[in-house]
């Protein structure tokens, strides 16, 4: 039973990690390798607002999410504009930006017990003999709401459809009046904001430190690749597969092996079925 509950929690956590990354990629084909860094950065911003400017919790949380979005926006206009369209250069630039952010944070001494975000609500509840604290329930709640909203946005709103049209065929979309750079920067902004949301919700459960940034990136990548880079349902399914995989590994082997699960999963999927479980672009190698 505990396996089920912890598995679910783990899965939703993974989905939250991946949501922002998947959104950015789904909308504008941009693989944002700075995703993990932005996650930690928003946590840091929230912490600063909370402890140094001493703003109330909700305000700090909200501000940090907005600022993350703005930073994402800024990254696009500042860095990515000039290399837009060259996927490898985009990758390198976002990756280097992410590493730079994380290493800067680490250099400033951003690790230690005092760096943590407060819980949304103290205390916990028992579900069928398993102790679950409110924070984790909050995580599940946020995760579900977020995924549902994402799904609706991407599949049903006008803007969402415009975004998807953009992703599928840029030239046609351009000729219908959708501007590529705005879409790109907005997608990065939204993705970063989502990273911020995930940070606010998940970070209180542990400590904040730069190393987590790399892990979040790997998890997001794993979910995106296993599920299929363009698919929202893929994110959900992959999160659950990986989430339960992790929890099972922790239970039956040991917690140390948990990080290996996503790494192996990525390589496995790329070799066997590169487009992922739900990926639409099957013929990755057949580009005529």
């Amino acid at each position: 039973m505990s396996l089920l509950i912890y598995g679910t929690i783990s899965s939703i956590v993974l989905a939250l990690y991946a949501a922002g990354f998947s959104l950015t990629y789904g909308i504008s084909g941009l693989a944002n390798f700075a995703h993990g860094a932005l996650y930690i950065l928003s946590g840091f911003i929230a912490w600063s607002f909370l402890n140094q400017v001493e703003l109330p919790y909700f305000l700090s949380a909200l501000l940090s999410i907005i600022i993350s979005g703005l930073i994402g926006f800024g990254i696009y206009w500042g860095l990515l504009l000039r290399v837009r369209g060259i996927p490898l250069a985009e990758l390198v630039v976002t990756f280097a930006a992410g590493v730079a952010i994380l290493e800067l944070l680490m250099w400033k001494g951003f690790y230690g017990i005092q760096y943590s975000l407060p819980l949304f609500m103290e205390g916990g509840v028992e579900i069928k003999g398993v102790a679950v604290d409110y924070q984790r329930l909050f995580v599940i709640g946020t995760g579900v709401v977020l995924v549902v909203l994402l799904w609706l946005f991407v599949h049903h709103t006008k803007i969402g459809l415009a975004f998807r049209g953009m992703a599928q065929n840029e030239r046609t979309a351009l000729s219908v009046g959708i501007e590529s750079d705005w879409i790109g920067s907005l997608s990065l902004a939204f993705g970063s904001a989502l990273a911020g949301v995930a940070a606010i919700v998940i970070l209180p459960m542990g400590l904040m430190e730069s190393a987590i940034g790399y892990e979040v990136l790997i998890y997001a990548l794993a979910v995106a690749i296993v599920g299929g880079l363009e698919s929202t349902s893929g994110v959900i399914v992959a999160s659950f597969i990986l989430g339960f995989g992790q929890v099972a590994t922790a239970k039956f082997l040991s917690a140390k092996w948990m990080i290996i699960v996503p790494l192996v999963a990525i390589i496995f999927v790329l070799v066997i079925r590169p487009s992922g479980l739900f990926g639409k672009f099957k013929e990755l190698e057949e580009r005529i």
Partner: protein
Amino acid sequence: MAEVEARYRKKRLDRGIKARADTIFAIASYRDILYLLLPRALPVILLLVLPLLFKGYWNKVIIYSCMIGLLALSWDFLASCGLFSLGQSLFFGLGAYVAGTLSYYFHWSPIFTIPIAVLGGGLLSAGLLSPVLRLRGVYFAMVTLMMPLLFMKMIETTGLVGGSHGLSSLTPFPNEWVAIYLAVGAFLVCLFVFRRAINEDYGLVLRAIRDDDRAVMSAAINIYWRKTQALFVAGAVGGFAGAFMTHHYQFVGMSVFALDYSILPLAASALGGPGTFAGPALGSMILVPLSEALRALGGLRIALYCFILILSVIALPEGIFHYIERKYHQFERLVRVG
């Protein structure tokens, strides 16, 4: 009558001596020969002579520069056939551990461990990465990013080959002159071999694969086999660097798979100018001493490499080497227009 403002444009001309010296038939004087020879000979002479002048610490810097230079060269080699690696530390680490384990468990000396690490590194790299060759470049980059991390975590969790503690007290080089001249020698040999190879037919095919792999496929060439060969070479070169450093430090640990060994060669190549081999070499020779000079900054250095990398990619994609080359071969002057 409208007034036309005088405007100026930059006019670039090849130097006279370049025009004369460019074809082998036209070398007419020692000056021409020197013009061609100097830029090639100077770095070689410098690298061979400097170790005699420096002592101790800066010699270590030269060694480290050469090793990163080797990693940068192997990166450029892969990039020449379209394989973009974000994980040079994989090659480095594999070679390091092969040499390290042989040295630790069997007490073999560098004379044996290094060649075996070179071969082993090449085979392992090619084997590990060849399944990913059929995918788009982005996926290759992602896998190369993950692999070193995977190895790091596996070593940490399984505790094999020394685990988190690593293997220490390994056999060193007989003396420091052997070490430094081996490093410099390997670096120079690699540089010149690669530069030569890329202009020969073999390199031509590799570059063609990068430019248009479908056209190469229709010319009855198995591009995946060629790419695997490139992986072998890159793995071998990177493995040499790893094996060398293992014996140099007399230690090998998980840190050989660290991000530093992936980012520094990448930044060096981007800075110097990818595609030219001389660029990455130059970039390493600039960045590594720089980073050593800035030792006090500690962890900030990686952020610095990243800044340089981003800047190079965005602002100066052709790299420093091309810029210098251009200045050497051409001169500019302002010419009035209108």
